[in-house]
């Protein structure tokens, strides 16, 4: 029923900032505040090494969260990213070991990720299973295949050429950070400068309207789940290269932090709003907080609590901003 959604009263600020801009500014401000506070409290915080360290940890989280961000903007959800990452990592590591060709591993990781994403897309589009359950089911399937494939072993020891992606430096900056910046930039361009990117927002904001505007929503959705899988595959490569090993427990602990990074960044689960730069900020904030707690010698048992609090605060703040914008 539409009777209750009474239009808001006639107040309009002339130079109103878009809520999206406000969200980004607030987050940048928060990061700046924490940074200022920490550098006054701990001399080691503001060192280049520490900042690069934070960014490198954030970059791994960002990569997992980036595909998820696209899916969430389009109004979906992907719970399979963690297990997908595990599966990609295990298969690609085995492929590299078997062929001693890093390229084989890269192909396997990306291919496997895309395939899992495609399956998600088909389950959601064709079988009409809600994304929550389709991807939850795939989580178990992918995890199970990874267990079966690895049979309790760890695949380890890779060539320096491959490990460069995870632990190398380029121009003094760790490669994962470059990967984050490049994929982030590609993603931002994809979302803002391609028609498909614009369609992602439309279908997230109102799927029925998007369908009736001639947007091939089902195909776009499959594409996004495939991109989400692709990013899981890419993240898997970076993880394997970084850890120099692949084991079947690698991805599962990453799911909830990735969702948290998206939400803390300010992408709404209602769909239709958000962006990759915000997820980058979200990942940075979460990493920064843990780093801060460590530097301040706060016990590690507090980390989940603080993370939970940050998620709640971010959601409340965005709700307040959006309410303000609606008036």
């Amino acid at each position, binding site marked *: 029923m539409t*009777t209750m959604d009474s239009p808001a009263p006639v107040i309009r600020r002339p130079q109103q900032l878009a809520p999206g801009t406000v969200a980004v500014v607030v987050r940048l401000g928060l990061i700046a505040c924490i940074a200022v506070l920490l550098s006054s409290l701990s001399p080691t915080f503001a060192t280049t090494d520490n900042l690069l360290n934070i960014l490198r940890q954030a970059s791994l989280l960002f990569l997992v969260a980036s595909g998820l961000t696209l899916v969430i903007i389009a109004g979906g959800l992907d719970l399979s990213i963690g297990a997908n990452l595990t599966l990609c990592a295990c298969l690609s590591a085995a492929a590299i070991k078997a062929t001693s060709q890093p390229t084989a591993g890269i192909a396997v990781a990306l291919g496997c990720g895309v395939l899992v994403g495609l399956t998600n897309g088909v389950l959601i589009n064709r079988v009409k299973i809600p994304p929550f359950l389709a991807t939850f089911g795939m989580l178990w399937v992918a995890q199970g295949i990874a267990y079966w494939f690895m049979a309790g072993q760890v695949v380890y020891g890779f060539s320096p050429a491959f490990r460069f992606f995870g632990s190398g430096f380029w121009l003094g900056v760790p490669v994962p950070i470059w990967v984050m910046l490049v994929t982030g930039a590609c993603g931002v361009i994809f979302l803002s400068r391609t028609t498909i990117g614009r369609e992602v927002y439309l279908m997230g*904001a*109102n799927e029925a309207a998007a369908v009736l505007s001639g947007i091939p929503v089902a195909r776009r959705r499959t594409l996004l789940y495939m991109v989400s899988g692709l990013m899981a595959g890419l993240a898997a490569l970076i993880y394997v290269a970084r850890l120099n090993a692949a084991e079947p427990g690698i991805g599962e602990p990453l799911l909830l932090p990735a969702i948290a990074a998206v939400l803390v960044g300010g992408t709404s689960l209602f769909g*239709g709003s958000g962006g990759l730069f915000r997820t980058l900020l979200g990942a940075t904030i979460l990493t920064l907080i843990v780093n801060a707690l460590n530097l301040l010698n706060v016990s590690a048992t507090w980390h989940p609590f603080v993370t939970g609090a940050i998620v709640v605060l971010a959601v409340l703040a965005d709700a307040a901003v959006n309410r303000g914008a609606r008036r």
Partner: protein
Amino acid sequence: MLANRESPDGGPETMAVRPGRDQGTAEPLLRLIDISKSFPGVHALRGVSLEIHAGEVHVILGQNGAGKSSLIKVLCGAYLADDGVIEHKGRRIAIQGPADANGIGVGVIFQEFSLAPYLDIAQNIFLGRERAFAKAGIIDKAAMHAAARDVLAQLGLNYDTWTFAADLGVAQQQMVEIAKALSQNSSILVMDEPTAAISERESERLFEVIARLKQRGVAIVYISHRMREVVALGDRITVMRDGAVVASYRRDEVSPDEMVGAMIGRSLAGLKRREALAAGAPVLTVTNLQTAKLTDISLEIRAGEVVGLAGLVGSGRTEVVRAIFGADPLRTGVIRLDGADFAQRPDRSTRAGLALLPEDRKREGLALPLAVGENATAAALWRLFRRGWFAPSVAEKVCRNLITRLNIATPGPAQFVRNLSGGNQQKVVLGKWLAAGSRLFMLDEPTRGVDIGAKTEIYRLIDDLAKDGAAVLVISSELPELIHLCDRAYVMRDYRIVGHLGRNELSEKAILDLAVHQ
């Protein structure tokens, strides 16, 4: 104020307004004085005064967007009036929420259904009033279903009260909605177009019930734009236009023509029936189309034609355009555009030049959280940016052109579309298809919830489209609108096309005779 329309010149001054004419004969049950309500961009109600008497049917007459629905919402507590006074039995009261309205005995039969899909009929009828059947908090289901059957029996209905609302057809849902309102034993019963979706037989039952209620002293506010019902039922008739009361009569002192005159008003009086154009080649031909619901639909629309698709709410009109557009799967049938087959999928249809303006603008037409610009180019991205690269500057230019061409009242493309008035929102949906360069426009209730100003502009636009050689299919529940706009019309009943009316055969009576099962 976003609205840039000039207010309709002088309606209230020139028409015979006789409010409170019978004052003194009886104390009204409910009196509304100078009620006003505005939303961003539109004054929904401007100083509306109304008297509702016990034992009378007070018909409120007006076109789409005249303010009838807003008035009801104020009455039932869904909207809070910005200004004005409400008196109940001479005592000043405030209606601040549905509970207040219930407190003074206002019951409403909504046009948009207020049923919960997975509650059964009995539970829906007594939603919010279960206490009557509860012992120690536990509902006596048998008693509740018996009571529900009693209420339905008053309407001559024999529904299985255990059926979920979700499993009912539109007409049945409407009847349950009526039963729900009846069961409240309201002293003031508001009915918002209760016959829009039901058959003649069911309507007759309803009128009998209304007569009985009148005898019991219930005050009835009946909203309709069907002249036959107005004449048959109304003791008192108030005509609204553009958010204001323009005339108020007793039944015996007014002719239908006079009422139509008041309803349409000067602003539309100059707008005579659309001139027929020479029809061109067939643009759309549909042969023996069949879907899960529809049977045997065949129709043809030619270039330069405006064709109507009439029928009661729930007769399958929306399903036809959805099927043509490819939004619902076909079972059998051939749909040709310019004589050629095309894939029945919304994205292909869009590229082939079809346009669909959906019935429910907010749910299916617009992405409300997004801006005007994003919505206006939603259907045209493929056309504007053929290589897939999006250029904000191009999109903005296209959108600004549309804003000018359609006279959309908005500060700019960046404005959120939810902050626009209904009429301007509808223009954005239309603009979406203009930008897409469509040639066949299927418009499902194009003027629903739209004010008079925007309505005229939409009529003019439809005329322009036809003149430019586009084909237009219009669905409307408002028969004068269909007659005004269309060169000819198909009439539907029970998911079939039951008749075709040429330009000279088109009349309210002819349409209703076909649409309503005799």
